[in-house]
């Protein structure tokens, strides 16, 4: 489906303050945050698939990955 490509850099700029707060909230390290954001943005830029709201998709994807990391940690290291 041909559609205007989302400007990933612009979306990242818009989301930066939100992302910082989300990563801190989930206790995500700087390195993990870098990996999560890069991999998610590569998916966004790497597909011509039309996304009606790329900002919401990116935010949802990043939050989802933070959730999964937290769950994985929960299983690995249950609270004593």
């Amino acid at each position, binding site marked *: *489906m041909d559609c205007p490509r989302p400007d990933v850099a612009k979306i990242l700029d818009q989301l930066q303050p939100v992302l910082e707060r989300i990563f801190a909230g989930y206790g995500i390290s700087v390195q993990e*945050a*870098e990996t999560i954001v890069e991999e998610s943005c590569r998916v966004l830029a790497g597909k011509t698939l039309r996304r009606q709201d790329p*900002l*919401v*998709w990116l935010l949802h994807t990043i939050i989802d990955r933070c959730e999964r990391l937290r769950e994985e940690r929960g299983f690995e290291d249950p609270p004593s």
Partner: protein
Amino acid sequence: MKIHPHDKVLEEFLLSLAERDRDLVFHLARCAYCRARLYYLPRPEETAGEKEAFGGYAPALERTRGRVETWARTVEAERDEAPDLFVELMGHPAERWDEVLSANPRFHSWGLFELLIERTREMTIRGPAHAEELGLLALSLGDCLDPYRYGAELIEDLRARAWAHVGNACRTRSDLHGAEEALGKAFDHLEKGTGDVLERAILLDLLGSLRRDQRRFEEAVDLLRKAVSTFLKIGDRHRAGRSLVNLATVHYHAGNPEASIPVLYQSLDLIDAEQEPRLLICARHNLATYLADAGRAVEARDLYRETRPLYRDFGEPFIQNRRQWLKGKIARGLGNASRAESLFLKAREGFLAEGVPYDTALVSLELAALYAEQGRTADLKRLAEEIAPVFTSRQIHREALAALAFLKQAIEAETASAELVARVAAFLQRAENDPGLKFDARNED
């Protein structure tokens, strides 16, 4: 809160709100963007410690931004070259495509991979066999791509999509076994992919269509509801609307057209008319038809009137003939039998010209019901003669032909009541999507 609140709790909550706040809640329920904003609002005053904690991410995000921009430029450049590569590849005989592709690294590009998958999707309706061929070619290309350059998981996502469209092409040409196998492979690849929820929802929607064609309706409903909910979560209202139209078709095929009505009303709020006007007219037309069939002729008429400008944009016989048919149903529902008759005749003429015997038979039965109600035996007999060519059609299966033959005999013997015509019509409607349905002349309802 992980547990869904009970209806009573929600009800109490809504009733406790002022009207303005209630509007806000309903807006939130429909707007993924505003729901996402809830994650960072309200913004509290940051403490010095928090400033330090958040500040650590800024340089990392800045570095990421740079790498993503480089990646985006790389794939854009490959996309620009893809149409020429596609034309060059298609210039070779089909039996050499695989060989040319694997031998020439110029073709090993992300842009061409995406383009082949997109062409597969576009060709599904017009030429499903060719679509399948292109999808399999895309998969061959996927095997040649460098996973270090493009990312193994991203390649898996696109392999999943290629298999999904191959499966959909198989379904379109009634190869349900091939479709099942291809969609199974699509899910396998998706599991190894990036976890892109949009890809998953698209695949759920396509699997829902397959389950519908396999007449596994409960599973189809379940899959399509999941697809709708996922699309809405990521703000894709239009695709959610499309899946709802698909869901309405499942209800129709399951013999429950009235259940389609609220689903189609919901889809109208979501479909983006500019993006896909054909989907909008399809949803509105089906809704008006089901309303008319359910005896809600006034509602159907109002909806039809609102849709008139859209019908004018689609002049093709496929839409215009069905428009006449719908107008006939509405006229009949409003008690205007003579207008209904002329509209049904017009629709039938159109279907004969279009070469669609099943719809010709169905609209003829609507006419037959009108004649039977009015005791017009001579017109009924003439109608039975006129639909004789339908019986030679190979596009109408055995049981449906048996039902029509039974009715024809009854008309000739002057024993065809309006009730009998209605029973045969109801059978034909259900049998259209279920060729295995058996016609029982004694007890057909």
